[in-house]
């Protein structure tokens, strides 16, 4: 019991929270065909964090989020700039920008002394979920004990806050988001703030990518942005139902991922846990695969099956 609360509870909560936040935004990213921009932003969260560290000397939450938002906007800006200046196809523009920025982030990270602040390239790539221990976690009563709760890994309140912000954004901007996602020209013609909505969506994506960084690292954040919403898309035609499905799949992926990674090997007779972040991505993939075969709305409109 104590072992569960100390070692598994916090990673479980963090995984579920992170997956849900990513799924919320991911729904709109994939509907707007911006999944690969989300991919790029997840990669460029790394140089954003490194930049914040260089400027402020710490990796406190606020500078990191600001660094991430700035780097997200730089990413999108550079992609647009390069598309406009070079006539190269969007995929290549995206690929050129994010690889360069990511490379820069990795080199700077390797070359500066960050040993004191727990960032290194390993964690940047696949996160550090297993190490988020709740020392004061004993049993169910710890959940309502303020003294014990103070000791929770800081990622949990941080992610809760971001969940509130992202949910708030979706609720307040519901109409502009939905209209501009499904018909951008119509949206512009009726005065919907298309640019601002897009700008906010990108910024929140970048901030979320950084917040989930701790949990699953920057590459696997992409799995959380794409897989649950994609699976949900195959379940229904209605967007709010899709969002609900995506939250279910996200929570499932997060929870199962952590549990299988931590306890799975034990069930098979091995001793060590495997990567929780990797397992979350894998489980999300399996869920998506199931949806591809069984989802009621999986068929494409054009073309045969």
């Amino acid at each position, binding site marked *: 019991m104590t072992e569960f609360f100390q070692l598994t509870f916090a990673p479980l909560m963090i995984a579920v929270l992170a997956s849900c936040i990513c799924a919320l935004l991911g729904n709109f990213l994939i509907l707007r065909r911006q999944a*690969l921009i989300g991919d790029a932003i997840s990669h460029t969260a790394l140089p954003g964090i490194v930049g914040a560290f260089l400027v402020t000397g710490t990796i406190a939450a606020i500078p990191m989020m600001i660094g991430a938002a700035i780097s997200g906007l730089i990413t999108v800006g550079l992609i647009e700039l390069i598309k406009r200046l070079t006539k190269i196809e969007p995929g290549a523009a995206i*690929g*050129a920008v994010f690889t*360069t920025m990511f*490379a820069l982030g990795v080199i700077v990270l390797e070359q500066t002394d960050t040993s004191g602040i727990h960032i290194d390239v390993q964690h940047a790539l696949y996160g550090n979920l297993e190490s988020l221990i709740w020392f004061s976690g004993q049993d169910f009563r710890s959940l309502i004990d303020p003294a014990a709760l103070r000791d929770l890994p800081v990622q949990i309140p941080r992610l809760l806050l971001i969940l509130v912000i992202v949910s708030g954004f979706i609720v307040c901007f519901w109409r502009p988001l939905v209209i501009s996602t499904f018909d951008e020209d119509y949206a512009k013609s009726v005065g919907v703030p298309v640019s601002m909505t897009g700008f906010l969506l990108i910024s929140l994506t970048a901030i979320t990518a950084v917040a989930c960084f701790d949990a699953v690292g920057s590459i696997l954040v992409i799995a959380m942005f794409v897989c649950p919403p994609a699976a949900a898309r195959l379940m229904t035609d209605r967007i709010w139902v899709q969002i609900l499905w995506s939250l279910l799949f996200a929570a499932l992926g997060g929870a199962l991922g952590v549990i299988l990674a931590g306890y799975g090997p034990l069930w098979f007779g091995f001793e060590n846990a495997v990567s929780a972040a*990797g397992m979350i991505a894998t489980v999300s993939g399996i869920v998506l695969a199931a949806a591809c075969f069984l989802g009621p709305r999986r068929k494409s409109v054009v073309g045969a099956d």
Partner: protein
Amino acid sequence: MFEFSYNTTLVAIGSGLLGAAAGTIGTFTVLRKRSLASDAVGHAALPGVAIAFMVGLLLGIEGRSLFVLLVGGIIAAGIGLYLIEAITRHTRLNADAAIGAVLSVSFGLGVVLLTVIQTLPTGGQAGLEDFILGSAASMIRQDVYLIGGVSALVIGLVVLFHRAMVITAFDRSYALTSGVNPDRIDLLIMALSLVVVVAGLKAAGAILVVALMIIPPTSARFWTNNAVTQTVLSALIGASCASSGALVSAIGDALPTGPVMVLLCAAVFLFSMIFAPANGLLANERRRAQLRHRLRQAARND
């Protein structure tokens, strides 16, 4: 100054060949708008490499033999490519969602398998992490021969089929009328890019190898409007950035190879974008200014 050992020189040459192959086939994947599919394919190779390692261990083969690992990588990458096509064709998900899903899930699976390997008693895993960001320094002579050989093969095939590839890229209907089968050529292009990406895993790593297939061709585009010239230039740029990147990374301290190669490519890109006489920004600006001048002259003479 620096003493280039025999091994370092070999690594530079092998990486150079890889860069040339990536630049060559990359020209066509960019033209066919499949750059990011190649990215996903590179990530998809990772679990294949891990599984090949484990199978190799079971069978008693030297688990780190690059050939074994690359075979596993190619099989997995092929599966990844097939999955992207299948998802795009048979479900209503778009190509970008399919690419994002395959990319991230296969990377996740690869990471899980890596952590499994880490716990195995042989502990030979240390070599496998190099496949994520690349490590030219850890390339041994057999690796260089394998990678160089594969790259040369790819370059040879592109040279052989370059006419068909150019036609397919620019005018599909003309391709059909001139006896070229565009679908088969597309398949060839994707197959070759798959091979290059997997071959490049050791040097440049899964995350960044795709940059070698995107940045050199787009840099070359600034220097010429001719597809064949672009391909040759792209190969040269790729070769020089990849080999210098390998050298710098091998000599330097705490410098994974992939990022160094990419930054060198990016520098060439920036220079080309600004200074190239054919399509560079300065040249375009000068042409526009000349045009404005001439128009003003013409207006004054009316």
